[in-house]
């Protein structure tokens, strides 16, 4: 199958002050999965938005089936058979499953009345075909994020799309659902649909892609055929070598060591949580973390890791249980109290619980530590500026100025601003929930390095992550949770993806003795 389904030529796009894309050429073959790689801000999303008609290119031309086409908006894109599953899902929470499937194209009869019978019949048919266990009359609010993601994919299929763009479809779904998704992608590919697949997860690319195009700084670096990059049935080493080729093209340099883990002297217990319970959410959670230690929390989506941490931090209530900081029992009431006790939490959801988008990077950094800059009846802006700049330098935050709104920073830089926010509070224990989600390889590496620096300063880190590789790479111990309970605790010698999965799926369950190190 070498027939070109879609081709873009000489696409350039500038935003005020930024050249986002320059002279992009890129072609997608019919019935293939074409992966698009690049760091955050490399221009992948911009290119996809141009193809989907959300942005207009400054120059260049899009061809579909060899014909030049003009795509002015997503509706026209849909008419050309293009469908996009955005990274941030677009859905109406109070509408039902069937209404969402047919959103914007509900079938009507002659006098304009919606033909609900057809809607129900078609929706049922699709749900059955796709083996999705929910009812068409359920509202989306009652579904989980990953359910909704699957629904979005179905929606794209019901549009009879010939080209489906998937922007990081696996960033918020569990391993099992990833398999389901990949199965679906296989089916689509077999039926001649072309898929453009954007992901930061390297291991996915070789599992799913036929072609890989790497974009850096708004230009195409290279396009590979996976068959040329890898032999049939490749060994682990061969995959690793191929991954390194892609990564070095993405970042423009070689990454020597993906996980800069260093041996750090382990000290006393910094945070001890005992028998933490919250009805129906998590049950009898006990764990501890020592100074100088990075302790991981693994588990599938919905295992209750985030919920537990939010309760430990005081963002959500809990029913019973004790928390000790540096050996002293504390009452967990609210985030302010926890911050004052030396415990902070970096939220998994940057947009919802982290960033204040309209405000400057400086205000975003200082917000948790206002006491230090407002005292004696007035503000101390010079001090604020100095301390924030100091941490920005340490964290290597790249921002045009301190007054720049944080919404104009890339994901990785915004995350470093948020880390600076918490470092300014000088905490003893940092709970980092998915600290590298949605950020590019280069910034990930910087965050790992920062974590290493942080624990060297005698602080303790709890890292909740869905990426097993980074947990294994960075942690001293890993607790595994399954359905609201801690099912196991592994020490570094015991780390393996398989073992973690056994605990995470509940196949194995071992009550760990507290304080194992």
């Amino acid at each position, binding site marked *: 199958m070498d027939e070109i389904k879609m081709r873009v030529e000489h696409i350039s796009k500038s*935003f005020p002050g930024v050249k986002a894309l320059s002279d992009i050429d890129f072609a997608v073959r019919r019935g293939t999965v074409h992966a698009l790689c690049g760091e955050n801000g490399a221009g992948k999303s911009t290119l996809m938005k141009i193809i989907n008609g959300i942005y207009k290119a*400054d*120059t260049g*031309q899009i061809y579909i089936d060899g014909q030049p086409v003009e795509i002015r908006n997503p509706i026209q894109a849909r008419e050309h058979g293009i469908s996009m599953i955005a990274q941030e899902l677009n859905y109406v929470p109070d509408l039902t499953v069937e209404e969402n499937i047919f959103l914007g194209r509900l079938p009507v009869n002659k006098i304009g009345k919606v033909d609900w019978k057809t809607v129900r019949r078609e929706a049922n048919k699709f749900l059955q075909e796709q083996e999705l266990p929910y009812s068409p009359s359920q509202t989306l609010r009652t579904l989980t994020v990953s359910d909704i993601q699957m629904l979005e994919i179905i929606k794209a299929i019901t549009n009879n799309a010939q080209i489906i763009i998937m922007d990081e479809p696996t960033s918020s779904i569990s391993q099992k659902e990833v398999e389901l998704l990949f199965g679906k992608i296989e089916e689509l590919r077999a039926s001649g649909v072309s898929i453009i697949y954007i992901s930061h997860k390297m291991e996915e690319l070789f599992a799913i892609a036929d072609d890989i195009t790497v974009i850096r700084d708004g230009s195409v670096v290279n396009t590979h055929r996976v068959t040329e990059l890898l032999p049939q049935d490749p060994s682990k080493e061969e995959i690793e070598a191929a991954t390194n080729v892609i990564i070095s093209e993405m970042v423009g340099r070689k990454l020597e060591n993906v996980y800069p883990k260093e041996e750090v002297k382990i000290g006393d217990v910094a945070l001890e949580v005992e028998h933490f319970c919250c009805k129906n959410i998590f049950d009898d959670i006990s764990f501890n973390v020592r100074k100088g230690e990075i302790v991981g929390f693994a588990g599938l989506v919905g295992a209750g890791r985030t919920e537990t941490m939010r309760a430990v931090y005081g963002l959500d209530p809990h029913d019973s249980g004790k928390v000790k900081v540096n050996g002293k029992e504390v009452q967990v009431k609210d*985030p302010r109290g*926890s911050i004052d006790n030396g415990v902070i939490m970096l939220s998994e959801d940057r947009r919802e*619980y982290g960033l204040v988008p*309209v*405000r400057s990077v400086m205000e975003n950094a200082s917000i948790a530590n206002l006491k230090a800059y407002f005292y004696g009846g007035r503000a101390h802006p010079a001090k604020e500026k100095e301390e924030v700049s100091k941490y920005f330098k340490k964290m290597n935050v790249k921002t045009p100025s301190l007054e720049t709104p944080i919404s104009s920073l890339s994901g990785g830089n915004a995350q470093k601003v948020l880390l600076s926010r918490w470092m300014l509070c000088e905490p003893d224990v940092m709970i980092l929930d998915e600290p590298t989600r949605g950020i590019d390889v280069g910034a990930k590496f910087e965050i790992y390095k920062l974590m290493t620096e942080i624990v060297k300063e005698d602080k303790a880190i709890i890292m909740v992550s869905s990426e097993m590789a980074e947990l294994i790479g960075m942690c001293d111990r890993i607790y595994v949770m399954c359905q609201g309970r801690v099912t196991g605790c592994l020490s570094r010698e015991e780390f393996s993806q398989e073992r973690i999965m056994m605990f995470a799926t509940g196949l194995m369950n071992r009550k760990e003795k507290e304080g194992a190190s």
Partner: protein
Amino acid sequence: MGKNAKTQQFIQKYSIFIVLIVMFLACSALSPYFLKANNMINIMRQICVGLLIAYGEMILIVSGFLDLSIASVLALSGVLSVSAYKSTQSLAVAILVALAVGIVCNLFNAFFVANVGVPAFIATLGMQQIARGIALYYCGGSNILQLGNFTVMGQGMIGPIPLPVIVVVAITVVIWYLINQTRWGRSLYAIGGNRNAAEASGINVKYSIYVGYIVNGMLAGLAGIIFMARNNAGLPNGAVGYEMTGLTAAIVGGTSMTGGVGTVMGTVAGAFIIAFLENIMNLVGVDSYIQQIIEGFIVVVAVGADIFSKGRKSTKVIIAPTDTEKKEEK
């Protein structure tokens, strides 16, 4: 390019003051009477009540809320204050009563907004009816007349300058201080910008909302005193629609309805732009009904401009087709 971006930033930041200056110059050109000292003092006197309300609205809009009840609360605290003055002959008591009434009404607002989670629009819409109803019930529907010395609060002069103008200047300084020099002020912007993030960052959101509404209530009480004193009567039906005057000034002054953005000086500029406009329309003899139509347009245009400029700041840019594309289209 860097220089261009900087100029652009400068213009964006100070655009409201540029508009104000242009407006001022245009008004001076349109009517010789505009620049007369009498007219200027008149404008300042007229702006007082509206500006106090605008500060209240600005504080609340910045934190992601608003207050539709402020004009009714103004009337209620005004008539109760007048009545307290008439029975005690003490200005101090009258002022305390006005402030207390403003605060109590706004504790009600804050409770429903912060603790119960009722949208501010609904909670304060309810209060709008409640406060107006109490004011009318208390007065039996009629006005309270013969205020005696109470009128000094609205009509008194210190040298050539009206007393309320001096009061409002002092309040401006206080509000500026609260917004820019206190932890509470900074918290408002964070709450309005992203309430969840503010909460997760250890900001006491409820406390900040309560303080916001309390300050708003005190402003309403003070505005009530000045309003009644200027009219030389306790008017339970007075100041209807003033919440819109305040909202307009705040919004024209760059306060963003989506929260997190707004300044005291911008609000002052917004209030003056509207005051100049009203004044010049009176001076050149524009029909007062037409004035209302024009003011309505201004609110929509101001919010539209705010949304438009935000759209430009973000990446959603519609760039005109280049020459090559135009040729292709042909």
